[in-house]
Every structure is written in C-alpha cells, then in structure tokens.
C-alpha cells in the first residue's frame, strides 16, 4: 500500500487573497518578517498498490481531472510508504 500526497498551490501570478490575509494576521501577531505567504491544499490518500509508477500515473490523472484547477493552480505529487 502506498500513500499518495498531492499538493495543490495557486499559480504564482494568481492573487492569493487568503495568503495575504494570513500574512497580515501573522504580522499583527508579531511575526513581522514573514513574506510571500501562500495557501494551498494537500490531499492525501491510500492506494492499494506497490507499484510506484502506476500510482504516480493515477495521481497525476486525479489531479488533472479533479483535484487541481489548471486555470489557476499547479500541483505536485509525492508518494510514500503507507
């Protein structure tokens, strides 16, 4: 069994309103030096296979078809032992 992790982040040129708000709040809390806060999603799942290549392919398809929105988001795939 493998654990697939897909990390979805907004593309660099898309304004990250949420990231901005969090950055403001962090500065307010005294973390003044923090810059470029960006917020994304992490999707984890268990895949009942040992074949890492097959898993990677599947995860890529899932990301492209559903988990990331190609208009505004990029994604990264990571595979670990479950």
């Amino acid at each position, binding site marked *: 069994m493998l654990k697939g992790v897909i990390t979805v982040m907004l593309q660099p*040129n*898309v*304004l990250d*309103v*949420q990231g901005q*708000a969090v950055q403001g709040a962090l500065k307010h809390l005294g973390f003044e030096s923090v810059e470029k806060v960006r917020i994304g*999603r992490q999707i984890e799942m268990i895949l009942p296979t040992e074949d890492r290549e097959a898993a990677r392919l599947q995860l890529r398809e899932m990301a492209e*078809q*559903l*988990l990331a*929105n190609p*208009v*505004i988001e990029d994604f990264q795939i990571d595979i670990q032992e479950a």
Partner: protein
Amino acid sequence: MHCAVLVFPGSNCDVDLYKAILQIKGATAEYVWHTDTDLDRFDVLLIPGGFTYGDYLRPGALAGVSPVIASVKKAANSGKLVLGICNGFQILIEAGLLPGALLPNQSLQFICDVVPVKVVQSKSPFTSSYNHGDLLRLPIAHGSGNYYCDEVTHQELESNGQIAFSFPPENNPNGSLAGITGLLNEQRNVLGMMPHPERAVKQWLGSTDGLRLFQSMLEHHTA
C-alpha cells in the same frame, strides 16, 4: 420552452428557479436528478445555485465531473441554451464550458446583499430584453464569486462581447476582475452569472429585474 432544472446533491436554489420559470407564460419546467443523463426533451438547461457536494474541494468542482455534465456539454455544443446561476456558474466554469475561475471573495467572507449590476451585453438570448448599460438591482449570495482570468482571456472576452454583466467599479462587492459577474461563451448560448435573477421576480422580494432575463430566453425560443 421546456426547461430542465438540474438538481445535484446540495443544490438549494432549484425550487426558487423552478418557481421563477413558472412565472413566465409559455415556459414549463421539470427537475432533473443529476444521474439522469437524457436531456433531449428539453429546450433549455438551467443549473441552479446552492452548494453542490458541499462546495468541498472547490465550489462546483465535484458537480463539474458528474455524469450529467457530459450531456450538458453536448447540449451546449448543439446550440441549446444553458444558464448557470451562482453555484451553477461555478459548475459551468469547472466543467470548462466557460473560461476563467471563480476565486474566494476578496473579503474572504460570504456576501448576501442586493446590489447594482450593469448589463454589458444585451445582444444575447439571455439579455435581449435589457438595454446595454441598464443598471439592475439583483441579489447576490456567494462565498466564491471573485472572477479571475488571465490578461489574454480577458482581451478575448472583451473583443468577443462575452461579458454579459458586471458590477460597477465603485461597487464591486467581491473583487472580480473588471467587475465581471456574468459571462457568455463565444456562441452566446451559455451564460453563467453570480447574481440571482430568480430571486428578483416579485415586488415583495425587493426587485423584479430578474424576470426579463427569463423573458428574453422565452422570446429567443419562440422566435
């Protein structure tokens, strides 16, 4: 004009839309459950607002990959009218029937209000009863209605006349790019919009400005 009101798990403006359609003489409506993929009997497809699949992941994303959407795409390609309101707009965008993306509101809060909305394109099957520049009063109620697209797409939308509605610059409640809040496809038979015309159909609801949108569709159909 026989209209399908598509119902997904989590749709919640389906009844409002259905009731609004029945106010138009000459229009009939029928609810269609999302697993029903045979849409041939309908002249018009309506995707109501709500929180399909709880808006989980991204608003409209999970509904955008559901089986009925393939039939909606087919119908759209064949020239049938398709209207998505609020969550319906988000679904059309996620399904790739309209360009761009709908991001969280700039305030990061859900906004419910009645706001001025400008008619930018009156030459479409949905907007022909309005005049270019009309300022409508329409309800909005959404958390992710902040329209975004890249510069190139924006240019295309402008030059093709695909922008149907926009918020006036001094009153842009959600931060949408150029105030865009209603969008046509290139063929102008698909419209997605964040404001709720179906909530502006009775005097006691505060506005009747939404009625003319449905009337336009009827006129287009009977023409």
